[in-house]
């Protein structure tokens, strides 16, 4: 009798634990990186590359969200120009997972940009494009598109839409990492990063007050180093990434002379009722010539063309 109850207790406990499986997709740290793909067509090189990519995922997680660049573009006073964004109708033209993943990133940046300017119809068009590409990539289960559409249509705050979109993207990235499809995540992040840098450069070219944008563009050197390492990893997984990797290396060369040297001291204070540490400038030295800028912008345009064409 006792055994029977104990068995029921154990079964109940196991059932509860099993039902928590979905929550594992949320965990981002302390996970093993075992390769259990098991498909015979995978070469040893691909498995090794996936393993290396898995080890390098901290680089990916560190790359800042494109929303920082797009909000700077808006703050520079630039008017909303849909012509500089990617055409949402082109989503159906992408036939490979490589292009689909890159353009999920591009459209995600454009979605945030359109919503920042209150262009809700454009934002919905980008949502539809992301949904179509995500279905092709078999990652649509990570998104609640109905809720996203409701938020966009109801003119919800940018925070609500961003929180939902970025949280879904993050859940997707974590899920793909576990599915050994980390290369897809790298491409999504790369696409979003290139689009944000493209928008930043496009606006900075003609902006009157572009100091902050230029500093932010110069600062992308840090993220670029991570992107180059990650693209190098995925070349072995996806040969289509080679051209993009080579362009990213060229971009790294173009950034070679660019530097933003800042000396700071940290001070503790309270802002808005929240304990805050403030890094105060002691000295700032930006080395970023017009020639450097034009070189960078030119390569970024080429990278974007490789992605969206």
């Amino acid at each position: 009798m006792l055994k029977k109850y104990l068995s029921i207790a154990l079964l109940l406990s196991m059932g509860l634990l099993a039902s928590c499986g979905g929550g594992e997709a949320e965990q981002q740290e302390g996970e093993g990186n075992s390769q259990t793909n098991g498909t015979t067509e995978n070469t040893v090189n691909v498995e090794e590359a996936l393993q290396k990519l898995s080890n390098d995922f901290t680089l990916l997680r560190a790359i800042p969200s494109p929303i920082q660049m797009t909000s700077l573009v808006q703050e520079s006073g630039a008017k909303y120009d849909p012509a500089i964004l990617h055409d949402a109708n082109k989503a159906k033209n992408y036939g490979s997972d490589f292009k689909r993943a890159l353009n999920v990133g591009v459209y995600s940046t454009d979605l945030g940009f359109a919503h920042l300017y209150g262009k809700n119809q454009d934002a919905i068009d980008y949502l539809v494009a992301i949904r179509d590409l995500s279905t092709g990539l078999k990652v649509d289960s990570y998104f609640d598109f109905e809720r996203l559409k409701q938020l966009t249509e109801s003119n919800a705050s940018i925070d609500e839409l961003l929180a939902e979109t970025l949280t879904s993207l993050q859940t997707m990235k974590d899920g793909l990492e576990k599915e050994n499809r980390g290369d897809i995540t790298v491409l999504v992040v790369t696409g979003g990063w290139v689009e944000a840098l493209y928008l930043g450069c496009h606006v900075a070219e003609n902006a009157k007050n572009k100091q902050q944008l230029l500093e932010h563009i110069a600062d992308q050197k840090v993220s670029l180093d991570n992107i180059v390492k990650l693209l190098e990893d995925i070349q072995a997984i996806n040969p289509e990434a080679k051209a993009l990797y080579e362009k990213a290396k060229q971009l790294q060369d173009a950034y070679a002379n660019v530097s933003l040297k800042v000396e700071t001291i940290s001070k503790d204070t309270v802002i808005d009722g929240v304990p805050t540490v403030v890094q105060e400038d002691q000295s700032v030295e930006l080395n970023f010539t017009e020639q450097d800028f034009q070189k960078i912008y030119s390569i970024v345009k080429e990278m974007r063309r490789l992605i969206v064409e």
Partner: protein
Amino acid sequence: MKRYVLLFFLLIGGAAYAQQCTPEVMREYTRKCVNQLRPRGYTFLKSYRIDASSNKTVEYSYIFNRGQTYMITFANESNPKEFSGILFELFDSSRRKLIDNYNPSLKQYRTAVAFRCSQTGIYHLKFTFEPSVKDYCLVSVVGFKR
């Protein structure tokens, strides 16, 4: 018999804690964090969904950009006034600690800290769960403003 009953409750209890980290619960915690950002004019940037059931210390790296002020908020099941036992520390790329969420004079853990960044680089966000903490689920949201 007592031992088996205890085992039963331990198993069920452990499972119940793990169950808290469902996507729905984490979404609710995310909303709590976002609600701290909005009144202060911060825009949502990134969320960390932490399940510390296996690792009591979790660390992430993130590139913070010059010219931005970041607010890092935390939420779990407890209301903000009862938030306790989860230490957050922010380090720069040289592993110098910039700020944490513990107030030693009040012996309180805050649910938000902020950082005004002047030096773009990789920063480290470290979360440590004290052994006494039984709720392993936490969401931390980073917001930014200029």
